[in-house]
């Protein structure tokens, strides 16, 4: 069957040759993936430096941090952080980490690079949208960073940006004028970028799979990205209009989120009748899926890395996929647990508590499948697998505190305390970051054609693993003792005895943060001076290891799309190449098989 598009054949893309088309405004999903990775890397170091400054301030409230006044003369006069500057750094830390690291790195960066290759496609179906997706996200990041340079500095409202604090304007505090507008604009722009990305991910998965690549033959990473993109599509499509309404409340004087008769600094505010809970509903309808957007790709990556290093398939591929799907579906039904004491109807608190508790079931299943699959495996220990196993440990530690926070009665004690901070840092931030590290050490050879240094990698792992526990485990203890989060200093009598714990955490955070410089060095050093990587250094089975060159050529497979003959993880068998058979190898295999 032919159509008029035949006329266009000849005009089609050859690999670009100019520097700009090749490395900057590239439509190649691999370049875009690397760009996203670079953005996330810049963002994560910015976010980490912010957290250092915050931690130093929390440990020693009147400490002068030399040179801090260069960052903000009003925020740190005499190098000592003001209360508002602490909150501004905290807000930026949260926003940068959640949006520009945890969403971009595991999902947009690795997803862009590997999803098309893993399904055997030559590119995403809408490469120009894909390019826009990155550049729009980049602009969003610039807009956010720009708020550091406006007169009042960035917003201090926290990454959740609750109204009316975020909606009444500068009278509510430094950064609540222009800072919030820039914040909301940045997030709205970011949503556009992620919507374009999700559109490509979904369509690639549904339409661009190569011959033989049935849905169940897709690797778990692909499933993770696919499920995440479906979540992203719905979640970001809700956050974007919410941000626009917030901006309108600011610049156009509307009252979507601002109630009547508010008096700030002895001034009666002109707004009227808005619903403050409306923002919370809209935000958390996005916000809870967002934490799964951060962690589900990590789950996929960890599974993918683990099977290659366990030399066996997961106990059940399908159960893992169904569980990730269940997380995605349930994530929309649980958001109210963020609002147990918000003044929402107490009956709905109970209604939200049950799905929240039930979401532990698919999470438990995922963890049990991981641990159960370790049984009887031939585990290889390398940096990638260490980080993958570390992620499991972190996910367990962060996950169990979910039992507490799912219950409204315990939320009375724990809401808005460090217990919550410890919970989400472990379960979504550290776990997702471990997923990113695992993916980096695993795929770096394919992305850059060079191996990463294993010794440095292992040092990095040990410091990070022990460090992360030293930082985030004590958060739970602080929370149990009633230590409220988002305090710049602990002036309350009952919080004074907890300050030594904070100092311990600060020291741990500085050391752990410094360890990340080892990673950065390893990344840069290996990129240029690493050992040359073979095409398939881990003896892995999925299609990204079947590309004709390393890194893969412009169209991924050198003009011939592979044909897929097997389920994704044919490990632990006797194949012609060793104990594995690649997905595109036509040979017959004997294997442990998979239970459906």
């Amino acid at each position, binding site marked *: 069957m032919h159509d008029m598009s035949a006329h266009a054949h000849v005009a089609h893309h050859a690999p670009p040759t100019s520097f700009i088309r090749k490395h900057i405004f590239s439509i190649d999903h691999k370049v875009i993936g690397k760009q996203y990775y670079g953005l996330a890397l810049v963002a994560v170091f910015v976010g980490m430096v912010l957290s250092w400054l915050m931690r130093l301030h929390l440990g020693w409230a009147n400490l002068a941090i030399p040179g801090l006044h260069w960052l903000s003369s009003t925020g740190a006069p005499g190098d000592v952080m003001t209360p508002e500057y602490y909150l501004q750094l905290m807000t930026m830390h949260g926003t940068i980490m959640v949006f520009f690291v945890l969403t971009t790195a595991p999902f947009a960066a690795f997803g862009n690079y590997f999803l098309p290759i893993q399904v055997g496609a030559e590119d995403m179906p809408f490469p120009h949208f894909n390019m826009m997706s990155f550049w729009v996200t980049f602009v969003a990041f610039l807009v956010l960073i720009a708020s550091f340079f406006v007169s009042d500095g960035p917003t201090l409202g926290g990454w959740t940006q609750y109204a009316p604090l975020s909606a009444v304007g500068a009278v509510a505090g430094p950064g609540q004028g222009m800072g919030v507008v820039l914040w909301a604009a940045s997030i709205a722009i970011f949503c556009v970028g992620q919507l374009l990305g999700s559109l490509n991910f979904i369509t690639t998965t549904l339409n661009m799979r*190569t011959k033989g690549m049935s849905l169940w033959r897709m690797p778990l990473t692909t499933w993770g990205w696919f499920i995440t993109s479906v979540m992203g599509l719905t979640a970001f499509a809700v956050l974007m209009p919410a941000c626009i309404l917030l901006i309108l409340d600011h610049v156009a004087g509307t009252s979507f989120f601002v109630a009547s008769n508010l008096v700030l600094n002895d001034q009666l505010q002109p707004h009227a009748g808005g*619903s403050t809970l409306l923002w919370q509903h809209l935000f958390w309808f996005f916000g809870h899926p967002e934490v799964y957007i951060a962690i589900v790709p990590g789950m996929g990556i960890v599974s993918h890395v683990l099977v290659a290093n366990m030399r066996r398939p997961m106990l059940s591929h399908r159960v893992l996929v169904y569980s990730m799907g269940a997380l995605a579906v349930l994530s929309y039904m649980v958001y109210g647990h963020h609002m147990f004491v918000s003044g929402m109807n107490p009956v709905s608190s109970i209604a939200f508590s049950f799905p929240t508790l039930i979401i532990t079931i698919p999470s438990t299943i995922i963890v049990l499948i991981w641990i159960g699959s370790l049984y009887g495996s031939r585990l290889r220990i390398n940096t990638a697998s260490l980080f993958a196993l570390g992620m499991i440990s972190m996910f367990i530690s962060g996950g169990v505190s979910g039992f507490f926070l799912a219950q409204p009665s315990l939320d009375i004690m724990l809401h808005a305390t460090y217990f919550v901070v410890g919970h989400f840092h472990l379960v979504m931030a550290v776990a997702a970051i471990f997923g990113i590290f695992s993916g980096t050490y695993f795929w770096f050879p394919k992305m850059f054609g060079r191996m990463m240094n294993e010794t440095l990698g292992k040092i990095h792992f040990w410091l990070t693993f022990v460090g992360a526990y030293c930082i985030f485990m004590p958060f739970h203890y602080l929370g149990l003792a009633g230590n409220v989060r988002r305090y710049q200093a602990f002036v309350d009598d009952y919080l004074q005895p907890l300050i030594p714990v904070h100092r311990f955490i600060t020291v741990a955070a500085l050391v752990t943060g410094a360890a990340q410089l080892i990673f950065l060095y390893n990344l840069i050093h290996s990129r240029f001076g690493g050992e040359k990587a073979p095409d398939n250094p881990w003896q892995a089975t999925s299609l990204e290891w079947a590309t004709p060159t390393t890194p893969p050529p412009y169209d991924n497979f050198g003009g011939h799309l592979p044909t897929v*003959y097997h389920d994704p993880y044919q490990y632990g068998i006797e194949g012609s190449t060793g104990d594995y058979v690649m997905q595109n190898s036509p040979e017959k*295999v004997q294997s442990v098989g998979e239970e459906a």
Partner: protein
Amino acid sequence: MATTVHEPPRIEQPSQPRRVLDGGGGHGNLIPPQGSLRAVEYAPPPAATGIWVGIAAISMTFAALTSALVVRRGGALDWRHFTIPSILYLNTLVLIASSVTLEIARRRVAGFMGLKAEVRSPARWLYVTLALGLLFVAGQYVAWRQLSAQGLYLASNPSSSFFYVLTAAHALHLLGGLGGLVRVMRKLGNFSLRRSTLDATSRYWHFMDVLWVYLLVLIWAKL
């Protein structure tokens, strides 16, 4: 432990091959036809899937705005009803008419593509659609002017706030559709139009139509 001998390698065969009209988007054409073996070659081209994904996202956005409206209205003591500008009904007719003309154009182009006897230029109908689309946007602008002439601005009242936000959001999406139409016409002009592009654009346009009718009902019933 069960060691099983696998079945011979399976390659999924399409159970019911459908008519393929298009090779798909992207740089699908880099791959020589004999090498291009997709698992889903019988499935619709990416543009057809993509447009539904896009429609889902846009629906979600308007669902969020709708729920915001319902929540905001629920607790409000300051909600003021107003009669919607009557030009909106006229605009609705214009938009529906544009959908009809676009559908005519689409069928003509399809006929053209299938090399049927009738090869009359379908561009004329696309121009009409474009004109009607612009007329709709102009009509919306008139509606805003009428409303502001009554003293109802964006910030006057939550009902007028929602009116402006909903109609502006729809108009923006519609302008995107107009852009798509222009692109279709350009491609038609240099014979590089794909069937899937045309289908996707027209689906989007019809969706804008349906969305507008939904918004009109929402505005009529709730504001």
